[in-house]
């Protein structure tokens, strides 16, 4: 019985992130449009886009290899598995022990690796520019993320995400300077990793500084749909990650009543909405940075992570 319930929760969670992902992006777009006094596309527009893309034939460049055609599924699979391991509305996921926070980051790293390779496969200048810049940003964002994980793991004494969430949900966590630094760092990393303003502009296509869009430029049809879905999933993943660590209220514990699950679900949707609104406001009030000012921005997260880890190292056993 217990096994069935946890299987159900795990399945529900995987479906939920998949279904909620386009809605989240649609919501952010709508909010941004409203802030700019435009009407904006309807909330369900991302679903329509995905559906239309999936139905069209895929146009593939003549010299594209098998890697180009396999990459969308690989990128999607790695991102989806990572997203399935982050608690959204319930903790104690059935398979949460199979990969901890470090593994989740590494799974996203796998997705990025294939995304960059796919960008270089056709051999166009745009693909190369996107891949090389993505790798530059990642070379700062990934260590920053790892150091943030170190901070959290040192506080929770485990790299297991469910343990970290459990610690922060209890009153034991207390207020640490390190945790605050980790939160700011994590937000910067989330912005950089999701190609949002000021790191990258998800809305433009022909901007010289584009990163993510440059890599997927050659994609069309179902391949593009998978790539887009993976990008949507990544946004939800990061919002859920920040939510379950820094706003862990109302997560349903394993073996809870059906009502508790429903309440947790409603609370999760509310968290997504708040995060989406904040993201839209942030993106509206800030301008896109030049590519070579990014190291200062993302490097800030790296320094915050290092400082947080260092403080915990020094304060332990004092």
């Amino acid at each position, binding site marked *: 019985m217990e096994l069935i319930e946890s299987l159900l929760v795990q399945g529900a969670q995987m479906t939920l992130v998949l279904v909620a992902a386009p809605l989240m992006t649609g919501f952010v777009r709508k909010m941004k449009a409203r802030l700019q006094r435009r009407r904006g596309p309807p909330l369900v527009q991302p679903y329509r886009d995905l559906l239309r893309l*999936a*139905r069209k*034939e*895929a*146009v*593939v*460049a*003549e*010299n594209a290899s*098998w*890697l180009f055609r396999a990459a969308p*599924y690989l990128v*999607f*699979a790695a991102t989806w*598995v990572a997203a399935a391991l982050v608690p959204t509305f319930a903790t104690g996921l059935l*398979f949460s*022990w*199979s*990969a*901890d926070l*470090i*593994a989740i980051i*590494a799974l996203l*790293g796998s997705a*990025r*690796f294939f995304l960059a*390779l796919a960008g*270089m*496969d056709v*051999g*166009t*200048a745009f*693909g190369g*520019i996107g*891949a*090389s*810049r993505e*790798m530059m940003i*990642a070379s*700062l964002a990934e*260590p920053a993320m*790892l*150091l943030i994980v*170190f901070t959290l793991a040192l506080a929770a004494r*485990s790299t*297991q995400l469910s343990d970290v969430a459990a610690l922060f949900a209890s009153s034991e966590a207390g207020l640490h300077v390190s945790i605050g630094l980790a939160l700011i760092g994590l937000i910067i990393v989330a912005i950089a990793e999701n190609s949002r303003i000021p790191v990258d502009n998800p809305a433009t*296509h022909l901007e010289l500084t584009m990163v993510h869009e440059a890599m997927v*430029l*050659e994609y069309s*049809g*179902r391949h593009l749909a998978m790539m887009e879905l993976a990008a949507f999933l990544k946004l939800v993943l990061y919002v859920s990650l920040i939510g379950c660590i820094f706003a862990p209220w109302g997560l349903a514990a394993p073996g809870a009543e059906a009502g508790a699950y429903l309440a947790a679900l409603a609370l999760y949707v509310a968290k997504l909405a708040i995060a989406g609104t904040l993201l839209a406001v942030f993106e509206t009030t800030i301008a896109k940075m030049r*590519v070579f000012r990014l*190291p200062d921005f993302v490097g800030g997260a*790296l320094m915050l992570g*290092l400082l947080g880890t*260092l403080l915990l*190292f*020094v304060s*332990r*056993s004092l």
Partner: protein
Amino acid sequence: MSAVASILLCVAALLALGIVGIATPRPLTATRLVYGGTGLVCLAAASMAFALLATGAPPAEITLPLALPWVGAGFRIDSLSAFFLLVVDLGGAASALYGIGYGAHEKEPRRVLPFFPTFLAGMNLVLLSADAFSFLLSWEFMSLASWALVMAHQEEENRRAGYVYIVMASLGTMALLMAFGILAGTDGGFSFEAMRHSVHAPQMVMLVVILALLGAGSKAGLVPLHAWLPLAHPAAPSHVSALMSGVMTKVAVYAFIRILFDLCGGLPWWAGLLVLLAGGISAALGVLQAVMQDEPKRLLAFSTIENIGIVFVGLGLALAFRSNGMVAAAALALTAALFHVLNHSLFKSLLFFGAGAVLTATGERAMDRLGGLIHRMPATALLFLVGCMAISALPPLNGFVSEWLTFQAILASPELPGWALKVGVPAVGGLLALAAALASAAFAKTFGIAFLGRPRSEPAGTAHEVDRFSLAAMAILGMLCLATGIFPGFVIDLLSPAVRQAAGGALPSQAGLPWLMIMPSAASGSSYDGALVFLFMTASGLFAAAFVHRFASRKLRRAPAWDCGFPQPSPVTQYSGSSFAQPIRRVFGGRVLGSSEEVALPRPGSMAPARFTLTLPDPVWDWIYLPVAGAVGYAARELNRLQFLTIRRYLSLVFGALILLLLVVALWS
């Protein structure tokens, strides 16, 4: 027959194969004979070492009446040497299999064949040695054999590489010689057994730590002793490069572990910190220089420095934990280091084989002359991709597991006392995190530029897949990378006798855990499950593909590339290796490596081409090697006068030296 005797027999067989390499008249027959024989012998030795490790057999030893008459040559196998024997002979067997195909392209096989098996014999002997004399003799034998292999191709570049290599190798041996001399003490107990039981003064232990770090570190390629490595490793034929990078550096790691963990006794508190910092700096600096390289083999050599750095971080942590009595944490850190030793030997050999295959197929060394090889060499491309993913520490492959274990060891270390460690460990953690991310950039670059895109030169456009032997060797290593990534628990259990011997404790057995997961310590509860992650990724990828193909479109049309409407037909417009690295060079290169770019634009109206110059200095080379080399050259020139003295002056010199030595002895006591 005991295990030592059988492996010594394998060594004798390898030496005999070296003679076969000289004596067989027809080059092709000789190639087949030597590589085939070496492969079989290494396979036999590797399986014996595996059996020893898996059964946890007690140490066995044998003394041969060779070498010094009153000591004899002692040989011994314990769990630690059995593990390293497994790594060496596995790498040797794969390399020999690869050599059957690759060696056929060799222009002068006689310059490679005799030395290949003797090189392997030397490495095996180092691992078997149980006294300082046979150890140093085998060590020097290994160095000289590998030096001969570096000099195999008669090119200017190789001569320079060989020169720098032999100088550094001699320096390293000298440091080890002095370390063993100190350990042997005044009584001259050259056997390891005697060293283990004698008591050493703290100042002497201090010297030994530094000398071992110099001697083993220079062979392994620790910064700043690494400068020979990116010259020598790529200069050798590719299957030898694989041996040097993948295997010989591990023999150096073995020497380091043997001296510091086994022979030395109580270590000063800063030993761990020193090793830790050397490892962290090597990891970050090595990979940063790797990203900038434009030749796949050079890039791989720099990445070896990075990986050796990761291993030494694990070793440094283990030393720090051990000297503070934290046995479980020391076992975790040492397991991480040894796991990475195994992993690196697998994927680095695989990558060097791949680079060699590209070299055979195209004849091009520079990345910027390659491109599009995934179409013409599909199998090599797939296997090289596996190697790239493994070395970039991407799950579910093996590189991730050892990196994960290293991170877990770092997270266990806030309990370490002392401010230096409290600040040093997180800093090294940051360097490791940086190295991990930069490694994936370096290998995305290698694979993306060499195998993807459009061919940048004629030979790259007409390349053909390499022979079956080379592919088989790569496939076996690729499979092992996947297997050790998916079933890490078995490897950890296999390592545990070696870890127990060196660290005094081992990780709990992983075999009993459900679902093939690994959990290094029950207290922290951190766990990882390579098999499930692999299963989930495959299942969700296949599910997504099947779903889309079933319910949405499955139509596909080939068309010219889109490239925002302005596709450029010339392949030169693609990103090249150095343009791929440009953003990273701009972020890190200027500050850390002192790289600079210069763009010279012609005046308006002028038809002259614009010029872009990139200078990429190696700070270690400029700041350490050149001054030292200059000083040595100066001293040699000055001392040269001594060669032309009269006999009277020589006699007075001898007299003066005698007086000086007597004075030293008088003052010492």
